[in-house]
């Protein structure tokens, strides 16, 4: 008896969820957007979500969609929380979702096994499981344009080309969670082959704003370079602490989640010299970004607080996430001849993606990023990153694209992918010729 109210309630929701207008009409395609505009990492989640939505809306406004089919972007708030993310996934996958960008390592890990079952690809752009770059084992997962491991190898190459890395001490400060720990196996491997030593400094998720001890330890260990795998409030705190202990900031490199405008806003001039890896262009000087300003922001259809936020690192990265997905839709439309595609078509589209410099220019993004060329076995594309430096008020590109050490990383990726699949007897991979 007791549960009847509950059941009525649940039935109400069931009914409600059926009533929600489902964007499966013939003239549109459904693109879910997992956002985290709330929670401890909201600072990074907000501009990313804005860039993502604005690009699709720009295509709708400017071109009337992709090949005449409008894209419906539907945001679902995850607050960077795995349970909520999974719930978002389950509640939207039935709407004809073409691809998911989970935007959290935890959610990505939860969704990877679901992707082949539901036939919806996961596009974790430069995050999530590095091993997912191995297309043979992970047909439904894509990490364009580079995995964390490739990125780390590029950063190490940068260090090597700036005074050599042999016999140096590299400090690695990281968020003590799945995300931050992800590149450690490669770091350990490369420290042997490249001949440097490593000191690790974990920062607890709850201690992000309280890094005094870690930086005291840095002072004790005296590393030559620092590499940071940080996120959210951890980044500005770390840069401030580094400045406090007089660590030379031009020897402190963040990964691509530790090098946005939002991170440095709180640091300002004190962060001058700080370096970060990046794979997406900065600023508004791209025709595509200008189109967003004209067709979306100026019409008041964007959620950005001010037009100045457009072109920020994370905004542009969110936009690039949408660019890759939009391009995959086009490829899939070409391949299948259909205008409205399915998740499975989308997967084929993502796999056959080929964003050459030429194509990027056509899209209004000349020189925005390195080439991204996927294949059946390669789900991370080119994998090149560049290094940018904080001038005290803005980011400045200070290096050319640095190619990763594919020869070292690739075998490790494949090994990790094998390990992942090994205890899953019914796992479906694919064979690439």
């Amino acid at each position, binding site marked *: 008896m007791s549960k009847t109210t509950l059941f009525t309630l649940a039935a109400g929701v069931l009914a409600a969820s059926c009533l929600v207008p489902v964007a499966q009409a013939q003239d549109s395609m459904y693109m879910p957007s997992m956002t985290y505009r709330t*929670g401890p990492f909201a600072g990074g989640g907000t501009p990313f979500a804005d860039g993502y939505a604005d690009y699709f809306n720009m295509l709708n406004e400017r071109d009337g969609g992709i090949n005449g089919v409008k894209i419906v972007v539907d945001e679902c708030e995850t607050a960077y929380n795995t349970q909520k993310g999974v719930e978002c996934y389950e509640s939207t996958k039935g709407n004809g979702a073409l691809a998911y960008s989970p935007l959290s390592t935890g959610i990505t890990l939860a969704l990877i096994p679901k992707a082949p079952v539901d036939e919806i690809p996961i596009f974790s752009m430069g995050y999530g499981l590095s091993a997912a770059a191995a297309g043979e084992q992970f047909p439904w997962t894509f990490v364009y344009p580079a995995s964390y491991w490739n990125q780390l190898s590029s950063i190490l190459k940068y260090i090597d080309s700036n005074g050599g890395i042999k016999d140096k001490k590299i400090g690695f400060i990281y968020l003590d969670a799945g995300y931050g720990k992800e590149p450690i196996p490669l770091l350990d491997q490369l420290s042997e082959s490249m001949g440097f030593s490593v000191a690790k400094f974990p920062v607890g998720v709850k201690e992000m704003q309280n890094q005094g001890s870690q930086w005291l330890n840095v002072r004790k260990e005296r590393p030559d370079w620092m590499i940071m795998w940080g996120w959210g409030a951890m980044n500005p705190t770390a840069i*401030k602490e580094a400045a*406090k202990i007089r660590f030379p900031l031009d020897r402190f490199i963040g990964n691509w989640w530790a090098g946005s405008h939002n991170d440095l806003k709180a640091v300002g001039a004190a962060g001058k010299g700080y370096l970060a890896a990046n794979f997406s262009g900065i600023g508004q000087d791209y025709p595509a970004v200008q189109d967003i300003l004209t067709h979306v922001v100026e019409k008041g259809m964007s959620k950005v607080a001010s037009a100045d936020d457009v072109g920020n690192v994370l905004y542009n990265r969110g936009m690039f996430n949408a660019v890759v997905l939009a391009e995959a839709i086009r490829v899939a439309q070409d391949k299948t001849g259909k205008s409205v595609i399915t998740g499975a078509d989308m997967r084929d589209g993502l796999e056959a993606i080929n964003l050459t410099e030429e194509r990027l220019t056509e899209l209004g993004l000349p020189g925005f990023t390195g080439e991204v060329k996927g294949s059946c076995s390669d789900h991370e594309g080119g994998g090149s990153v560049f290094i940018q430096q904080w001038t005290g008020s803005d980011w400045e590109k200070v290096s050319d694209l640095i190619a990763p050490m594919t020869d070292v990383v690739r075998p490790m990726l494949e090994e990790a992918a094998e390990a992942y699949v090994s205890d899953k007897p019914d796992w479906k991979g694919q064979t690439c010729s």
Partner: protein
Amino acid sequence: MELIHSILVAPFIEMVAYPDFFLQVVWEGFVAGVLYSLIALGFVLIYKASGVFNFAQGIMVVFAALALVSLHAMGVPAWLAVLLSLGIMGLLAVGIERLVLRKLVNQHDAILLMATIGLTLVLKGVGQLVFGGEPKPMITEQLGLPTGSTDWEVFDGIVIFQHIDIAAAVIAVLMVMALGVFFSKTRIGRALRAVADDHQAALSVGISLHQIWAIVWFASGIVALVTGIMWGARSEVSFALEIIALKALAVLILGGFTSIPGAIVGGLMIGVGEKLFEVYWGALFGSGVEAWFAYVLALIFLLFRPQGLFGERIIERV
């Protein structure tokens, strides 16, 4: 044997070998401790006067700082923004007293605690709705707070003092002194102490409990704003700070729930203790021990001296 050496001997050798570094560690711990103390102070004020264990103190710190920063972002001059934020905290105090506390008089303390957990959710929701969830830089310079640092050359090395940290310590001392004067010299302060000693007796001599509660909540609102400014200046103002505020609970166990000096000493002990433990012993445990050090220390403390350093001995009456 080696383990015993690395626990009992090696860290101390290291401390003596690099005394400048040791001093730096203690100073950093001291500064963190000052901030823990400030949060704990907010707890103590409210607990003393109303018996409410205010779980929302941490979120009040974030809320106050966010209000300040957001008002300034809207174009309000810094000092006016401080006043307005104080006004907001005052309204909040009156609101909480009217809508929550008044209705929960004489309830079990666990119920009161859970009510403040509910309050935490409300403040979190309202705060993000009104001010936005993304982290914001503190307006350190606009408030006239010092930046920069001073080096102290000692023992063939240097100890670096950030001016903002020194300011935080000074302000904390001033605030504790001001509270001391407030409690001992003013009429309201004396009334507060009377209430803390005995609710019934205070009522019988004509002290309005409602008024007193609103005042202590406002007072801890002020403490929250100051804490928020100081902490925000060290990193930034964000909701991530809320979890760190929980450490103040451990501080309270050490210091006793009703003692202002206890909150200060407890905060400093935890601040310095966890830094020393993390820097000199942390590596043995795989580091990151700061996450639990305060709580485990509190737990051990509870087993041996449950009333805290300065608390009164609890005698159970039948």
